[in-house]
């Protein structure tokens, strides 16, 4: 530890450059991971906020909420509990004079069921009639205010925004929470349809209708349009980036150690045990990577604070910790690879012959 710290202190420029490289690599990985998670989160944040485990859909809907319908007749076969809630989904485009159009998802809810009851508002109040909506905060960020009237289609008249809520996006589109009657109107199906689906905090919805089927919420999420493909792409991108970055860091630390071999030869000639030199090398690598990770993390947090809200960033601390751990392990590996060379360093080389 003594040697490791003294060398870093003495060779400030060299070690600053190495730390800067680790900062940039960790920053790149952290930011990309956070962006990917942010995007993934925008697909599911409404569902995540409901805290549900299963969903009952029409089995011909291809596990798509937008394609699924449950008729009143089918609904009679569902034994609804307090842990179940109807959801009516419709894709809409919100229009209002003076504001940009926003592609959204209207979700009709039953005011007596848990989604509506547990809905947390950042401002305003919950819906009191079929022409009121609670909008995701993206609307607020786009300039919409409480009391604004928006058209969601050409025939249903205007809806009034009476509240805003955070974390209400489904498949990246902001959600507009309304009533099941409002949903029926938007869909133009009258009252023959009960809802699009039933979501449940249980693993299964008690249903005897053969046209309806319960799916786990993970299965449903995986089938969200583009979700799996997008996540796979990001996962591969980050994985390749990690692998390449880790190799680059390992190679740098290896070269750093190899450059120190003449000094190690001197120390070995003096009788300094090889294990002291190995510990010094590993400790030094850990210091460098930790310093790089800490600065990289601070930069990432600053970026998240400064980046526009339209660019979603999400921190998954277990995952980022895993990335950090990967970097630390790689740095140790980078330092361990030349251990054999350190152990075999020939003190005679400093004496000559």
């Amino acid at each position: 530890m003594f040697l490791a710290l003294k060398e870093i202190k003495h060779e400030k420029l060299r070690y600053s450059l190495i730390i800067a490289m680790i900062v940039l690599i960790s920053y790149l990985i952290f930011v990309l991971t956070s962006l990917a998670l942010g995007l993934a989160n925008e697909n599911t944040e409404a569902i995540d906020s409901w805290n549900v485990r299963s969903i009952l859909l029409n089995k011909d809907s291809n596990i798509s909420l937008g394609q699924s319908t449950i008729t009143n007749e089918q609904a009679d076969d569902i034994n609804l509990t307090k842990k179940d809630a109807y959801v009516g989904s419709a894709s809409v485009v919100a229009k209002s004079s003076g504001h940009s159009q926003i592609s959204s998802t209207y979700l009709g809810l039953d005011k007596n069921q848990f989604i509506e009851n547990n809905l947390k508002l950042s401002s305003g109040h919950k819906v009191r009639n079929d022409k009121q909506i609670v909008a995701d905060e993206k609307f607020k960020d786009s300039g919409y205010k409480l009391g604004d009237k928006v058209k969601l289609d050409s025939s249903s008249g205007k809806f009034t925004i009476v509240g805003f809520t955070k974390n209400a996006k489904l498949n990246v589109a902001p959600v507009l929470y309304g009533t099941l009657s409002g949903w029926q109107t938007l869909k133009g199906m009258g009252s023959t349809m009960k809802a699009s689906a039933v979501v449940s905090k249980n693993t299964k919805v008690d249903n005897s209708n053969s046209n309806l089927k319960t799916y786990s919420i993970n299965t449903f999420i995986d089938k969200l349009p583009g979700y799996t493909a997008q996540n796979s792409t990001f996962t591969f991108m980050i994985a390749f980036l990690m692998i390449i970055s880790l190799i680059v860091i390992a190679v740098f630390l290896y070269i750093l150690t190899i450059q120190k071999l003449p000094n190690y030869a001197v120390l070995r000639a003096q009788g300094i045990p090889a294990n002291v030199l190995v510990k010094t090398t590993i400790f030094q690598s850990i210091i460098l990577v930790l310093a790089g990770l800490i600065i990289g993390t601070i930069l990432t947090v600053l970026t998240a604070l400064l980046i526009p809200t339209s660019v979603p960033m999400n921190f998954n601390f277990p995952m980022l910790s895993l990335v950090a751990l990967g970097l630390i392990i790689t740095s140790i590996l980078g330092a361990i690879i030349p251990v054999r060379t350190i152990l075999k360093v020939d003190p005679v080389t400093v004496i000559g012959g």
Partner: protein
Amino acid sequence: MTAIELHDINKEFGSGLSRVKVLNNVNFKANKGELVLVLGPSGSGKSTFLTITGGLQTATSGDVTLDQNNISKISKRDMENFRLNKIGFVLQAYNLVPYLTVKEQFKLVDKVKKSHNLDNEQLMTLLKTLEIDDLINKYPSELSGGQNQRVAIARALYTDPEIILADEPTASLDTGRVDEVGELLQSLAKQQNKAVVVVTHDLRLENYADRIYEIMDGSMTERVN
């Protein structure tokens, strides 16, 4: 009392047609309280002799006995330990760590060898004798060749070794300093009963030696006065 004894030491490098014999049946002895000089030109094998004596490399054949221990038969780890505790190397290449100040060079030894080093008073006396006591906060790169060499000598003596092996310790020194180093090495042998072996081609050190060996083309002979 015999501190160093080399018996029929041979050292070969390479194999087949490229085989080179660097040391040829070398026999050598140094007692405690003696300063023994090994004189020879460059390429004569004197550094190889020194590294084998100090356990930095092994002989192709023959035995090396240091302080009653046959080091040809001990493990690498034990040899490292032996070197740290019993041998002080003064190397031509100064053997200083470039990123440690003079003071820290000694601190490093304290970290690894926690006892039986010189105490602070003894160290300051040694540094004053070598006239480097005002350089303790300097890095090796800030010192002249001669100053580096004197720090290297102090570093080698700091562990209070029983055996001192010096490789061209006066290579970077002017005549005045050569005499000082010669006197210092001689006093270490006489007053502290250490075995001091100096390999050099610097004839200016002859006056300080108790015995002189000459080495030429790997063969060593003791000069008889």
